[in-house]
């Protein structure tokens, strides 16, 4: 079986489950805030019935908070929907910036996630032909590797640049020193291999680089077998 499909079968479901678990955790937190705020409004109503003064500012704060959390919920569900549909077509043309934004958002639900900033988004659109689901998996794994060092207070910058006709170079720049000697680990290596992605040799403690081809034979073969 093709490397890509093989990897998708063995690791894809695990990744799908992991991301969905983190989304459900996020949604539970949102619901918990809405539930407590609604409960507080109920408490205030009961006090008002007993003749206590009802402060309008408190009511306004509560309704604003509920509206904010509903918006946060909508954003989360939109991300969940995009992620779920990323398995619809195994190989397709994708916009790399959109993939990075979605993957950074999904990995942001992890408790140890750092802040992620995507640079040069406005430059020429970087489209490539690949397996979007597996590419998300690879970027997610590399982000997790970087988060381990940077932690929740750190920052990871993602930088895209074209590398002649070979593909797009994606750099992960961390605010903290990373164990570059441990990169890439076996899982990351397998995912990259399935996608025909190369690791650039200029890794440092603060910078990791991968070269994503515009399209490759492995992807074409996988597309045919699907």
């Amino acid at each position: 079986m093709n490397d890509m499909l093989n990897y998708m079968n063995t690791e894809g479901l695990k990744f799908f489950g992991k991301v969905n678990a983190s989304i459900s955790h996020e949604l539970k937190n949102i619901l918990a805030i809405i539930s407590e705020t609604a409960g507080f409004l109920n408490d205030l109503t009961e006090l008002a019935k007993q003749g206590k003064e009802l402060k309008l500012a408190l009511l306004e704060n509560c309704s604003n908070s509920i509206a904010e959390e509903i918006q946060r919920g909508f954003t989360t569900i939109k991300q969940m929907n995009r992620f779920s549909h990323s398995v619809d077509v195994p190989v397709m043309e994708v916009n790399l910036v959109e993939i990075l934004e979605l993957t950074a958002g999904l990995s942001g639900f992890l408790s140890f996630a750092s802040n992620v900033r995507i640079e040069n988004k406005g430059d020429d659109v970087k489209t490539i032909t690949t397996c979007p689901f597996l590419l998300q998996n690879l970027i997610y794994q590399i982000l997790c590797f970087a988060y381990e060092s940077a932690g929740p207070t750190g920052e990871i910058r993602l930088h895209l640049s074209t590398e002649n006709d070979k593909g797009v170079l994606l750099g992960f720049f961390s605010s903290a020193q990373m164990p570059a000697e441990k990169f890439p680990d076996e899982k990351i290596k397998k995912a990259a291999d399935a996608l025909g992605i190369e690791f650039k040799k200029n890794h440092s403690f603060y910078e990791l680089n991968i070269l994503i081809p515009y399209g490759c034979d492995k992807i074409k073969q996988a597309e045919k077998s699907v």
Partner: protein
Amino acid sequence: MKILLVDDEQKFVNMLAKRMALRGIEADVAYTGEEAIKKAEKTIYDVAVLDIKMPGISGIQLKEKLSPLHANLKFIFVTGHGAIEKLEDEDSGAEKDIYISKPLNIEFLIETIEDLIQAG
């Protein structure tokens, strides 16, 4: 009765503290494990209500750091984790911890806190 509420979801924990105050319960809030340790070094709490998944120190790790500070401090874990039964099964401590799933029922939480304090 003095309670320490620890959760990185600031709105959640602030609202919970306000609702407890309306019920005559004094509750301090902390948004990180580090902040919780600083508060526990200055104040004696009866019960600590800890979120399990927090950036930095997790709720489980925080319990290990708070326990030596106050021998009588009791713990309740609050979590958005999908399967509480799994967490309870994994709990290998001599004294089983209490896990409550989000969203909370405040009356149930207060009842659980009171039961813990009464049990000594």
